[in-house]
């Protein structure tokens, strides 16, 4: 009787719960949150928040994090956390900018410089990420630890290369690239590539399978080391391209450039609705939605006049609450699904 009495009222809740945990609810929740934020700030600013020019500003501000995070979702999908995404991106930005300026100094053409800059950035990022994956699988060290070491090492290399100086790409060049929408093209092409690979090929399915249950994946012939390398290489591609987008946007590199990129990228991925444990509920657009959400929050808070001292605090608290709302905590100890 007691059992029935307790079960009876919970049946409605169970139905609600099943809706809540429906895969479409999980997928749509980040969009709903973004829309609610947009709606709230639009009300507060008399519609100026949704003005097309402001939306362009938000998109531009989100682009670097969105590009890096799109690559990062491949790594997160396997249930691994990469802490070297920011350091890799900034080192690629530094080395490629140095190469570009060296070519200009030597009398080379801008076109040659741009091609070399692009190739160096992407190649170096892919190499660093590939090397990290190999280190992890060959030495059997957890990805988290390898990337902590890489983050420190890459930051030290950047410090040695730059010291206290600032590299500046001539503004007429960055303006020319921006006017030709090169940053949008880079992001658009990479995002389309990532969507296809992640959602419509065996590679994406396997990466999510590994994140869901690594042992099961291994027993069905999906070897982690091969796919982890692949995930890191695609992640590296995103970082190399993110470095290019960053150069087009700001045109300068110093030791403090994009110092919070890694944290921003991880927050974007999580806010975008991806589980920190990766697996079947991983979506490649999570990084993009998350990056836009973070940027919209920052933009909106400035527009409504939140004090700069409070912005970080409000943002941190909102992240905490939104993550609490969006993430399913495992019933047992933190572990991959299954």
């Amino acid at each position, binding site marked *: 009787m007691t059992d029935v009495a307790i079960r009876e009222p919970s049946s409605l809740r169970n139905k609600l*719960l099943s809706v809540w945990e429906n895969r479409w609810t999980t997928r749509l929740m980040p969009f709903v949150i973004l829309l609610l*934020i947009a709606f*709230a700030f639009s009300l507060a600013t008399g519609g100026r928040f949704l003005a097309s020019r402001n939306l362009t500003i938000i998109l531009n501000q989100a682009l670097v994090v969105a590009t890096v995070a799109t690559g990062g979702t491949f790594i997160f999908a396997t249930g691994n956390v990469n802490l070297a995404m920011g350091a890799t991106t900034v080192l690629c930005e530094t080395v490629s900018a140095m190469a570009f300026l060296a070519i200009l100094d030597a009398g080379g053409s801008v076109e040659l410089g741009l091609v070399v800059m692009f190739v160096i950035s992407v190649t170096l990022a892919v190499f660093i990420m590939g090397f990290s994956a190999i280190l992890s699988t060959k030495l059997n060290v957890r990805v988290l630890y390898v990337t902590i070491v890489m983050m420190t090492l890459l930051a030290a290399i950047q410090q040695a290369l730059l010291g206290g100086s600032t590299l500046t790409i001539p*503004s007429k060049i960055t303006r020319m690239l921006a006017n030709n929408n090169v940053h949008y093209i880079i992001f658009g092409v990479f995002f389309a590539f990532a969507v296809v690979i992640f959602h419509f090929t065996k590679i994406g399915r396997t990466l999510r399978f590994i994140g869901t249950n690594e042992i099961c994946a291994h027993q069905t012939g999906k070897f982690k080391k091969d796919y982890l390398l692949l995930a890191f290489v695609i992640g590296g591609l995103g970082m190399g391209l993110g470095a290019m987008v960053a150069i087009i946007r*700001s045109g300068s590199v110093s030791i403090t450039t*994009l110092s919070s990129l890694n944290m921003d990228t991880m927050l974007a991925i999580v806010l975008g609705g991806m589980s920190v444990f990766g697996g079947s509920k991983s979506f490649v657009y999570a990084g993009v939605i998350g990056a836009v959400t973070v940027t919209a929050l*920052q933009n909106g808070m*400035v527009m409504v*006049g939140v004090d700069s001292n409070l912005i970080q605090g409000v943002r941190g608290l909102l992240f905490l609450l939104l993550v609490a709302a969006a993430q399913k905590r495992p019933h047992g100890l933190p572990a991959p699904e299954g």
Partner: protein
Amino acid sequence: MGTVMDLRKEGFHMKKIFALLLSMAMILAVLPLTSLAQEKYIIGVAFQNVTSDTEIQKDYYTNELAPALGMEFIFSEAIKDTETLVTFIENCYAKGAVGIINYYTAGRGRGAEAADQYEMFFITQASKLDDATLDLEYNLGNCGASVDGMARAYTAAMESVLADGENHSVLMCTTAAVGQVAASHYYSTQAMLETMQNKYNLTYSKSIDEIINTDSPGEVDTGNPNIKIFLVPGTDNDKTLATISTPLQSGDYDIFVAVSGYANYTSAIAEVERAKNMDIKVVATASIEKQTLTGFTTLDPLGNPILNAVILNPLNVANAFCAAAIYNALNGGAEALKDADGNAAQLFVNPWPCPDAETYANIAKLDTEHDTYVINADDLQRLMVTSNPDANHDSYAEYLMELADIDAIIARKIK
């Protein structure tokens, strides 16, 4: 068991709803903060660092300049890279800002372009113009520390700490001197290296320009084994702190000089003084604030003052000129502020040398309230084109020269 699971799920469900409701409540809670004071000019202030100085400056902007100029100021968080500066400018534009006062010198070129793109007037607190953006319509130029004034002040400060005739070795934090990212830092370092060279007949193995422009921290070859000089470039205070610890702990350096603030390094210096039983003299740039007085009056483990000499940066003087310049530009006076060639202007603020606590005690009475502000709302009339139609580049430069005389200011402001 099923009941327990139901309750657990129910709790889980409630947690999510509660978290979402809280998130929305927080967003809605900030809505009433919206300031719809459309009558005021909205100006963004992009700070490079957020320290105790910053709060003093925010008070001045908010309480003295805002009502006098009909402005509302939006303050940034600490801006550490160009990307963050551009983002701040864009967000200010979205709020309806019409001007930016920028402190992040390394990003002044890109910042000027971003502001120009959004038709916002832009002025930087720096000592060297960015040549590529001189002719931008909305770039008003710079108002920064006088490079000559800073060089003279650091020369005097170095001469005072070297005056005992003993051999001294110096650890110099040169901050943004490399490539003249901050020209005042470059010329201050140059002045100190020349002072050391003249005092001890040093023969540097490289030119002073090459020494200053070396990216990495390291010891300078002085040609005299008894005189050591160690240069630490870089704007990141935490990294600088980590870098100076090894040379400091060697006990070889008994003078510490920073071309910017010193507060971050006091603990590290005191630790070495205690461990090595030595006095390390400190020379740095400071502003009028409690911490500077504390520096002069607090004794180190050997009974000497923590701070031996400072070059005082008249923070609010530059702030007043920058805000007034934007005000004039918004009231049709943009062209009058340009230099003789019609380009963005470079205005210089002279520092106030302060060799001891006694001198500082007088200066510290300034900049605390309306009556003691070096430039208060009444003085501001001289800078505003609406009350003084003759306000232009030359009259600004002339006023700034007058403000170099700290004794005259004290006589006028402190009754």
